[in-house]
């Protein structure tokens, strides 16, 4: 598997690019650390340094799972879903009567979803959680016999499963798509992840430097129009420039990237609303500087399923 991936020049070039970017960012932070003197700027630089350290780790994990093959990528995303669901449920109040439903959600529904992705059973993995789990959760909860807050409690778990498991599982599902005249699916996944994450980072950078007008101050005080426009347009440009990774033409790649960025933004905003409601800033503390897993992949949650389906619809191998 590693040999075939290394033989794929485009993939090697893309990962080389990421590596160069990380090195440049690390060096830049080191230089900035020596230059800045105000306390506020120092805090920003330290924040950036922590984030970049986490980026090294995330890229390393992602790259090695890709190098090890499809199955490992599915397992990696499955693990991410598991951890993300855990962060989600930790934040949403459940009661003792929900224990059994939670048990099945963590130990059966989540792994099974990824098994379905891993065996490439498209017809099943796209409906498994929206149909079967959707029905299972309230049934099991009702059997536990506690009516207080029933709708709210079941809806929370259903939501958690959809966002943290179902949506995320569409990212590794890209590896199993059969596309017309294209078999570099690993690159397609890389395209999605790079554009989503670049969009996050670029929005953050644009917002930090030029951000003035807040988009939704009641939900996310860090999101500004300047950051949004700058981040989305530059990440879209990046996506277009990466067209050679994909089965798309440069224009199609730009359109896809734009869509990914917009959905990613929407994902971040929606998840912020949940965090706000629960009175927390982050879902967790696993990734230094970033918060929890769910804080890092909130944009991916929203972008992955739409990107998956559009790609499948327009570029699928026919017959």
């Amino acid at each position, binding site marked *: 598997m590693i040999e075939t991936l290394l033989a794929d020049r485009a993939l090697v070039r893309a990962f080389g690019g990421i590596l160069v970017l990380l090195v440049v960012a690390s060096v830049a932070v080191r230089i900035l650390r020596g230059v800045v003197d105000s306390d506020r700027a120092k805090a920003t630089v330290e924040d950036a340094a922590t984030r970049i350290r986490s980026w090294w780790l995330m890229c390393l994990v992602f790259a090695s799972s890709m190098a090890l093959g499809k199955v490992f990528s599915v397992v990696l995303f499955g693990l991410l879903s*598991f951890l993300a669901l*855990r*962060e989600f*449920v*930790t934040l949403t109040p*459940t009661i*003792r009567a929900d*224990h*059994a439903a*939670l*048990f099945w959600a*963590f*130990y059966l529904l989540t792994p099974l979803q990824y098994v379905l992705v891993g065996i490439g059973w498209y017809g099943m993995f796209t409906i498994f959680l929206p149909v079967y789990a959707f029905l299972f959760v309230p049934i099991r909860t009702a059997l536990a016999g506690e009516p207080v807050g029933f709708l709210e409690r079941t809806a929370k778990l259903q939501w958690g499963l959809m966002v943290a498991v179902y949506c995320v599982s569409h990212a590794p599902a890209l590896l199993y798509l059969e596309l017309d005249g294209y078999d570099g699916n690993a690159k397609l996944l890389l395209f999605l992840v790079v554009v989503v994450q670049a969009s996050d980072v670029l929005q953050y950078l644009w917002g930090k430097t030029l951000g003035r007008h807040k988009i939704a101050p009641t939900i996310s005080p860090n999101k500004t129009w300047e950051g949004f426009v700058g981040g989305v347009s530059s990440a879209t440009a990046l996506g277009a420039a990466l067209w050679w990774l994909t089965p798309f033409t440069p224009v199609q790649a730009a359109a896809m990237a734009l869509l990914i960025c917009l959905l990613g933004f929407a994902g971040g905003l929606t998840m912020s609303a949940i965090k706000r409601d629960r009175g927390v800033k982050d879902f*967790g*503390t696993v990734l230094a500087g970033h918060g929890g897993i769910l804080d890092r992949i909130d944009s991916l949650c929203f972008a992955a399923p739409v990107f998956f389906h559009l790609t499948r619809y327009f570029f699928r191998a026919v017959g």
Partner: protein
Amino acid sequence: LWCGASSRWIGVTPEPQQRIYCANHASHLDAVVIWAALPPNLRRTTRPVAAADYWRGGVKQWLATRVFRAILIERGKRDGDAEARRVAAREAVEQTRREMGSDSLILFPEGTRSPTGEMGPFKAGVFHLVQSCPEVEIVPTYLHNLGRVLPRGEFAPVPLLASVTFGAPLRLEPDEDRDVFLDRLRTTIEELSRA
């Protein structure tokens, strides 16, 4: 750790001295999690206090005495008369005092797991125990979310994120009344839940 427990020490640091960790009780995992939150050198000298009637027999007893090196005490019978309960309680305190030696203890003043996650009333045993060894520090300990990870009556833990918070040590004031002390301990643990 499976339940991703994190630990915080507020106004206290892990020290190799004799202490009694007093915590709210909602789950079988409570003692294990406190234990895991301690540095390895302290784990060897820290022992949970558990109910003999619950932990007696077979695998349970082996787990309690061999693995966790718990001090098993008799809980007073609920239907026994007042005098018998007093005797049993005194015996439990004396036994704990005897067995603990210079070890630290993990103790749940509620005496049983709360079914709802709310803290129940504290039993007087902890007061009598401290009375007999006033030099030992009481470390108020708050356990968050463990009642959700593994509630009473369930056997499989759900992997939610839990946390342990240790607070600044308390001591029994000279001439402090039983209820005043128990109340103070309880309030301190409640405050940790908001810290």
